[in-house]
C-alpha cells in the first residue's frame, strides 16, 4: 500500500500548490511521488507539474477550482493511492566511453579523490542509479546512488562549455549533460546516445523516471559504432527488469 507518508501542502502561487513529502532523498519517496503524478495526470484541473526529490509542484486551473477545494481533491487522491499505480522499474544501460579523449577532467578528478582511473571506472559502472526526476536542463536526469568514494565538491569555477553526452560527477551526484551547457561537474566520460528528443511530443526523454540507469563501459571504437547507429536511428536501448 502506498500513500503512506505524512504529506503537507503549501499555497505556492495563484495557481499552484506545493506538496511536500518527508524531506529526504530515497527511491521509495520518488516512486510514490511518481505514482501520485500518474493518479492525478488526467485530472481536469491539472495544468502541469514539476518534481523535486521529495516534493511536487502542481499548477492547477484556478479559474475552475479554488485552492482549498483543489487541496482537498489531492488529499482524497493521496488517501486512495493504490499499489496498482506503481510501475515495475527497469535497469537501462547507458554506454559510456571513459577514454581520455572524452573525459576532459578525469586526470584532475583522479588526483583529487586519490583513486586510479580504473578504480573510478569500476566504481562508477558497477552501481545502478535511481532516476528520481528530470531538471536543470531538458532531459537532465537526477540520479541517486553514487558511491561515496566518488563524491567530490563541485568545481569552484564552472566550465563554460561541457559537451553534450558528457558523463560527470558533482557533489554526491552523477549525471549526463543532454546538450552543450556550462557546468561545474567533473567530466569523466561521454555517452554516444541521445537522451532528449524535442520532436517526440509524447516522450521527449529516452528513459522514464523512477527507473534505474547503469553505465556500461565501451571502447572508443564501440563508442563510434554506437554513435553511428544513433545517427541512423538504429540504436536500441538494452534494458532488463529490476530485481531487488
Amino acid at each position: 500500500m502506498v500513500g503512506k507518508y505524512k504529506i503537507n501542502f503549501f499555497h505556492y502561487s495563484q495557481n499552484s500548490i506545493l506538496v511536500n513529502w518527508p524531506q529526504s532523498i530515497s527511491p521509495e519517496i520518488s516512486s510514490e511521488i511518481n505514482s501520485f503524478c500518474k493518479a492525478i495526470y488526467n485530472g481536469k484541473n491539472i495544468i502541469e507539474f514539476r518534481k523535486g526529490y521529495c516534493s511536487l509542484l502542481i499548477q492547477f486551473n484556478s479559474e475552475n477550482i479554488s485552492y482549498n477545494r483543489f487541496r482537498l481533491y489531492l488529499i482524497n487522491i493521496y488517501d486512495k493511492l493504490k499499489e496498482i499505480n506503481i510501475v515495475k522499474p527497469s535497469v537501462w544501460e547507458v554506454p559510456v566511453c571513459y577514454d581520455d579523449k572524452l573525459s576532459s577532467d578525469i586526470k584532475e578528478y583522479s588526483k583529487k579523490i586519490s583513486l586510479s582511473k580504473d578504480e573510478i571506472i569500476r566504481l562508477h559502472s558497477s552501481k545502478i542509479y535511481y532516476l528520481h526526476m528530470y531538471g536543470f536542463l531538458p532531459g537532465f536526469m537526477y540520479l541517486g546512488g553514487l558511491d561515496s568514494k566518488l563524491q567530490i565538491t563541485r568545481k569552484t569555477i564552472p566550465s563554460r562549455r561541457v559537451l553534450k553526452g558528457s558523463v560527470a560527477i558533482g557533489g554526491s551526484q552523477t549525471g549526463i549533460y543532454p546538450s552543450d551547457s556550462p557546468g561545474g561537474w567533473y567530466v569523466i566520460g561521454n555517452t554516444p546516445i541521445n537522451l532528449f528528443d524535442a520532436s517526440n511530443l509524447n516522450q521527449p526523454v529516452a528513459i522514464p523516471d523512477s527507473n534505474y540507469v547503469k553505465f556500461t563501459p565501451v571502447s572508443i571504437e564501440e563508442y563510434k559504432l554506437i554513435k553511428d547507429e544513433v545517427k541512423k536511428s538504429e540504436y536500441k536501448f538494452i534494458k532488463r527488469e529490476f530485481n531487488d
Partner: protein
Amino acid sequence: MIEVLDSGYHITVQDRGRSGFSKFGVPVSGSMDYLSSNNANSIVGNTINEPVFEIAMMGGEFLFTEEVDICISGAVFEVKLNNNSIINNTIIRVQKGDVLNFGKALKGFRIYLAISGGFKSDLILKSCSYFDNITPNSVVKKGDRFNLLRNKSKACNFINYPELVFENIIEVSKGPEFNLINNDDVKLLQEQFFTVSSNNRMGYFFENGLSSNSFSIITSPVIPGTIQLTPSGKMIALMKDGQVSGGYPRILQMNYNSISILSQKKQGDRIRFKLINLT
C-alpha cells in the same frame, strides 16, 4: 513575408510558452512581459496565443514584403517605419517594401511586435517560443524570413493598462522557505529598494540583498516568479526560461503581473517588494 534585416541585441519569437513539459526538465518560456504581448496581439485582433517578436534593449530591423497590420507594445523604443516615428498600442498599417526599425529602449526593456493574422514559426513541444536545444534557433538572426499566416480571428480581448508594467512595486507572496529569513531581513525586504544588476530570460539578479547565510534545500521545484536566496544573501528572481528545479531557498513568489513589471526593468532600475497574501 517579413525578412529580418538586423537582428538587434536579442530578438526571439515567443508565445504563451511550453506548458506540460517541465517534468522532462523543459522550461516554460513564453513572453517575459505577457501583459504587453497580450496587448500587442489583442490590438491587431489576434488571440493571445499568437507568436510575437520579443525585442530586448535595442536594435532590430524588419522588411515587410506585403501589406499587413501590426502593433507594438511594452517598452517604449525609438521605432521608425521608413524614418517616420510610430507609437505603441495602436494599429499600424505597413505597406509592401516598408522597413520597421527599432532603436534604443527609452523606457522599459522589452517591446513586442505582433502581426495581424500571425506569422509562421515551427511549433515544437506545443510552442513556438525559442529556447536553446529545443527550437533550431535560440535567437532571431539576420536573413531569417517569416511567412505571414493571415489567420482570421477577430478575438475580442481585454486590453491591459499599458503603463502598469512601468511601475516599480513587485507584489510577492511568501515562498515555502520564507521562514528561514530573520526578522531584520523581513523588514529589509519590505522597506528597501533593490537594484537590478543584470538580467536575461532565465532570471533577474540584484546588486543588494539580505544577510549571507548557509541555507540550502534538497533540490525542489521552482516556477517563473520564484525568488531564491543565494548563500551570499543576494536574490535571484527566476523568469520564463528559468530551470524547473533548484536548491536555493525559495523565499518569495511573484504574481503574474509582477513578472511582467520586472521584465521591463534593466540594469540600475530599482524595485520594491510588497508582501501580499494569496487568496
